[in-house]
């Protein structure tokens, strides 16, 4: 009896709490609904549709034939004239631009981490290229590197360093380097700001102890700074690898994939298959292959990151 009374006394608050909880659940679902709806409409269906395209003949010049071709489109991509060259170009671009971006970022971060008035000025200025649309970065570099009226050739000639114009963007090798330059200009700031945060997170006492022990500048950098910067460096590496591997805007505006397909990266052909060859099936298959390759690279990096993190 006494227990019952006690139970009665307890019930009302518990009930109130439960109804409060369910009202909160309704509120939660209501707030999530708009976001989830937008995302669902633009992720589940597109992925399924892209998968469907990649397994069917989808050629805009042959609009009445959409038969199932199995992995035919994937095989087409593997046998295409561009696959080997574009994958090579992409790897070359990634291998050149990612380390360049990271070295630029690290050097600038080290500079920004010094206590002097210049660091403040530089910190504001260095973000500017990153804020630009990639299309703008591309036009600016195209403008500077133009062999005919570009300022770079003009200055080099006036200084008598060269005697005839260098075709920066129409020589295959130079065009590749030019693309890397523009990429460093556009992406380097992000690496610098991120690595600066990493440097700031290192407690100053760590350096103090080393200095007392008489360690030199290089020794401190190599044995203390670099190991402690491992995680941020890896994150920049992952992010910049993805960005470089799917670079499209810069190629579109600076070289249009040329000269002689030297700068035609895989994402360029994913675009070309659809918009020039109007072969949606091949385009979708190539896009899936790119996505799969990227996923493998990211998972590989993350594995390295995980195995590093306990230290």
């Amino acid at each position, binding site marked *: 009896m006494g227990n019952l009374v006690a139970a009665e006394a307890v019930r009302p608050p518990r009930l109130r709490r439960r109804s409060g909880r369910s009202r*909160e*659940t309704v*509120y*939660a*679902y209501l*707030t*999530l609904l*708009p*976001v*989830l709806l*937008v995302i669902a409409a633009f992720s589940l*269906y*597109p*992925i399924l*549709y*892209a998968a469907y*395209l990649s397994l069917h003949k989808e050629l805009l010049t042959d609009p009445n034939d959409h038969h199932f071709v199995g992995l035919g489109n994937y095989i087409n991509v593997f046998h295409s004239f561009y696959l080997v060259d574009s994958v090579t170009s992409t790897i070359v671009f990634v291998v050149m631009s990612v380390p360049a971006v990271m070295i630029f970022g690290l*050097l600038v971060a080290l*500079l920004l981490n*010094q206590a*002097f008035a*210049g*660091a403040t000025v*530089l*910190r*504001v*200025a*260095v*973000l*500017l*290229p*990153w*804020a630009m*649309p*990639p299309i*703008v970065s591309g*036009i600016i*570099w195209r*403008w*500077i590197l133009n062999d005919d*009226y*570009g300022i770079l050739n003009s*200055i080099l000639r*006036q200084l008598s360093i060269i005697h005839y114009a260098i075709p920066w963007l129409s020589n295959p090798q130079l065009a590749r380097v030019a693309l890397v330059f523009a990429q460093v*200009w556009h992406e380097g700031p*992000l690496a610098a700001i*991120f690595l600066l*945060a990493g440097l700031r997170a290192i407690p100053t006492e760590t350096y103090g102890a080393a200095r007392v022990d008489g360690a030199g500048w290089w020794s401190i950098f190599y044995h203390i700074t670099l190991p402690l910067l491992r995680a*941020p460096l890896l*994150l920049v590496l992952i*992010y910049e690898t993805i960005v470089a591997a*799917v670079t499209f805007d810069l190629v*579109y*505006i600076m070289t249009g994939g040329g000269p002689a397909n030297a700068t035609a990266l895989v994402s360029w052909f994913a675009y070309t298959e*659809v918009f020039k060859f109007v072969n949606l099936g091949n385009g979708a298959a190539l*896009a*899936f292959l*790119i*996505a799969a390759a*990227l996923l493998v690279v990211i998972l590989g990096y993350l594995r390295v990151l995980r195995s590093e993190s306990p230290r």
Partner: protein
Amino acid sequence: MNVAWRKLCRKGGLWAATVVVLFFVLAPMLWILDSSFQGENELLTRPSHLLPQQPTVENFGYIFTGTIPRSFEVTGTLRSRVSQEAREVPQALENSVIVAVAVTIVNAVLGALAAYSFARLRFAGKTLAFNFLLGSRLLPAIAVAIPYYTIVNAANLLDTYTGLILVYLTFTLPFTVWFLRDYFQTLPEEIEEAALVDGCSRLQVLVRIVLPLAAPGLVAAGAFAFMFSYNEFLFALLLTQTIKSQTLPVILASVATNPDASLALTATSVVLAMVPPLLFALGFQRFLARGLVAALGRV
């Protein structure tokens, strides 16, 4: 003496390095700004003039009013070329800003609502919903380009602001929700609990207590959404057809890739396009840097 000398050397070295980096970062932008004040005939002379000999604002005049610059009337060995597309830059600027602002506002409202629920409430399917949001961004944009086109086409939204805004929302919302959720979680929960006890609803708590405290995070998330929408090129190229909705990157690309493009007008168009991101980067420098670090740090 020796110590002072070494200090001076260190300072000198740091400043020298700063000047080199500043030059690399700023010179390209300054050169195109410089070019926009030169006439077509001056840009075609060689060697290039580092500073305009006859500075002119006629390029800007043409873009805004259609008055053909005098430098184009020079004929003979110099070609006079006028890029008609450059006249579309003001409208494209307007389109870009409208789309970017709309995406930013919707991101802030919907993103904050959802992020707060993810941060503080417990409900069934929370982890699933969150992973779904993040997972939706794993596919490279180019892989879903054609399906996005068909969806937008089927909804009759090709060449409209709405079509672009919807697509940009799908790219920015997952990031905004993720970013704001983490930001909200760093705020002290006690104030919110006190307000709840006093009879505030969750929505009131969010609007009156959490959002004012989270203003820096909200600004950072909004700035990212704005910059993404303003800078995006591939989908803008795909989903717009006329100047009714074409954004700046599309118009810039068409100005610059026209083989008969006017140099002066290309430079001037680029300068106009640089203004909003420059203002943004300068105005929100602190927020952007902090947001960037938070964003990359949680991969």
